[in-house]
């Protein structure tokens, strides 16, 4: 189950990288490896050599990263280590995959300097007066975001009206709406692109592009709200078949947004090509010097935070602005914190197991990081040794193929705390006032021993 999610994520990243970097080896829109070049430079043997080198190295990296996936599959039984391996793989992949491109970019830039292959004017900024004024005229109006926000708030209100329900997902859906709203807001501020000396062309292309993207973000915000509503419903329904449905929903709601973004990007590219093919007044400007590595943008002469990417889809951040710096470092820190934090939690839960103790004051104490629990022996209403635990869902805790620890909601029993090794009967079932506690040890003999001790305590 988890492996499928990891593999789908990896597949998406893999395809994204392949479709982003592979076409860079072709001369397109006046650029090769994100370097502006005149078309006659393409016949130079040194350029051909760079292309051949890139193709070879890129193929090696793509195959190498596939081979590096084998341990991920082999770690099937070791969920925690599998997750850590997955995170490490993604990080290493993201770093390694750009190496061939970066080399090709540097080599091409060096050749360009050597042969003085400059296109257009250097250090010139362009703006179309009509684009600057009217670029957002045909975009989706921001007030339409009332729809996703209303959806999020009704989901929160609905969940809040039922005390047994978790507010996490509805709040997450609100956060998603806010994120898409902020994306729309910041995209409106992105500078218009000057394609041509013809104002009509600039205006129609910029407006069409913004119109498509703005409706795309609005639609995504609505779609994510539906997605969260579905997950919320699936979590509530303690259906035995929910795992299959969940998988379908996850795959569907990954594929649809991805498809939308790719389609929008394709349509924008096509309309650019169509219109510019008939326009003899295309304006090129040489801003290679601001594109470090070919894909990061650092331009102190530009006050805009978001700029359209040269390689790949969407936007990147100008790391020369103070807001850009906060973004770059902030996301690096958050990313590192997530990886380190998740790895730490996973390893800890893999290495520690719950410890049950009975204190002299007739208290039962179950010690486990974050989910420790205490109760009095006198509060035990019923004590039994059972061979199975009813199915249920996790509300807050850890559940892997081997363990279940933390807070769960079980079928027929309701609110429960589980500290069990799965498929390893017997289990000690303790009934407290409106709460069940399940506990077992890896060794069934030990579990029985604890059960007897608890029984003696209860009878006292």
């Amino acid at each position, binding site marked *: 189950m988890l492996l499928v999610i990891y593999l789908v994520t990896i597949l998406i990243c893999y395809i994204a990288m392949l479709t982003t970097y592979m076409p860079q080896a072709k001369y397109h829109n006046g650029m090769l490896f994100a370097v502006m070049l005149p078309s006659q430079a393409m016949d130079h043997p040194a350029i051909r050599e760079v292309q051949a080198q890139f193709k070879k190295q890129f193929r090696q990296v793509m195959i190498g990263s596939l081979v590096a996936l084998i341990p991920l599959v082999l770690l099937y039984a070791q969920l925690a280590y599998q997750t850590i391996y997955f995170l490490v793989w993604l990080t290493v992949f993201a770093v390694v995959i750009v190496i061939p491109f970066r080399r090709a970019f540097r080599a091409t830039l060096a050749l360009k300097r050597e042969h003085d292959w400059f296109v257009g*004017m*250097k*250090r*010139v*900024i*362009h*703006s*179309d*007066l*009509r*684009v*600057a*004024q009217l*670029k957002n005229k045909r975009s989706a109006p921001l007030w339409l975001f009332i729809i996703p926000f209303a959806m999020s708030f009704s989901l929160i209100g609905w969940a809040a009206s039922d005390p047994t329900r978790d507010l996490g997902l509805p709040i997450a859906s609100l956060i998603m709406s806010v994120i898409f709203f902020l994306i729309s807001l910041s995209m409106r*501020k992105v*500078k*218009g692109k*000057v394609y041509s*000396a013809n*104002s009509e062309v*600039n205006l129609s292309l910029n407006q069409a592009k913004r119109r498509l993207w703005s409706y795309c973000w609005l639609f995504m915000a609505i779609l994510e709200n539906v997605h969260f509503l579905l997950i919320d419903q699936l979590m509530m329904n303690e259906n035995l078949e929910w795992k299959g449905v969940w998988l379908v929903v996850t795959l569907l709601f990954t594929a649809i947004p991805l498809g939308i973004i790719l389609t929008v990007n394709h349509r924008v590219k096509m309309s650019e090509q169509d219109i510019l093919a008939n326009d003899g007044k295309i*304006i090129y400007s040489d801003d290679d010097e601001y594109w470090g590595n070919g894909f990061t943008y650092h*331009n102190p*002469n*530009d*006050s*805009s935070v978001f700029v359209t990417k040269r390689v790949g889809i969407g936007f990147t951040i100008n790391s020369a602005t103070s807001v850009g710096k906060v973004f770059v470092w902030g996301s690096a820190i958050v990313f590192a914190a997530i990886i380190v934090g998740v790895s730490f939690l996973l390893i800890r839960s893999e290495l520690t197991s719950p410890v049950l103790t009975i204190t002299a004051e007739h208290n039962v104490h179950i010690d486990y990081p974050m989910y420790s629990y205490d109760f009095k022996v006198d509060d035990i209403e019923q004590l039994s040794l059972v061979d199975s635990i009813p199915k249920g869902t996790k509300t807050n805790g850890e559940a892997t193929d081997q363990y279940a620890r933390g807070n769960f909601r079980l079928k027929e029993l309701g609110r429960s705390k589980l500290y069990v090794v799965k498929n390893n009967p017997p289990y000690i079932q303790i009934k407290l006032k409106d709460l069940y506690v399940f506990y077992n040890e890896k060794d069934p003999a030990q579990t029985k021993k604890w059960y007897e001790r608890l029984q003696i305590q209860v009878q006292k």
Partner: protein
Amino acid sequence: MVISLELDSETPLYEQLRNQIVIGIATGQLETDEKLPTVRQLAEDLGINTMTVNKAYALLKQEGYIVIDRRHGAKVGTRTAEDPKHAAHLEEQLQLMIAEATIKGVDQPRFQALCSQIFARMTYQH
């Protein structure tokens, strides 16, 4: 119309912007009464400081090329009557230009031919 500002030029950015808008009006790329972007919109689009755009707009307004309305923003101004002060200023500027041209070996016919060529590009209608 497309504004192109050279970052390495000795002419300050606000002056380049002002000059290009003036040329834009005279050559008909900007029509009379055509609306211009607001200071903030243009600064955002060029990625330069709003103060720079503000300075250019203030200059253009002061010289009567554009009008700035509190409600409708900036737009290209309507025709202005000939200004005697401007004529004096023009003579002063021309004198320097012609002096430079004479020293550099540009004679009167060539200078005038150049002037006619440039005048031909100006489609501004009074």
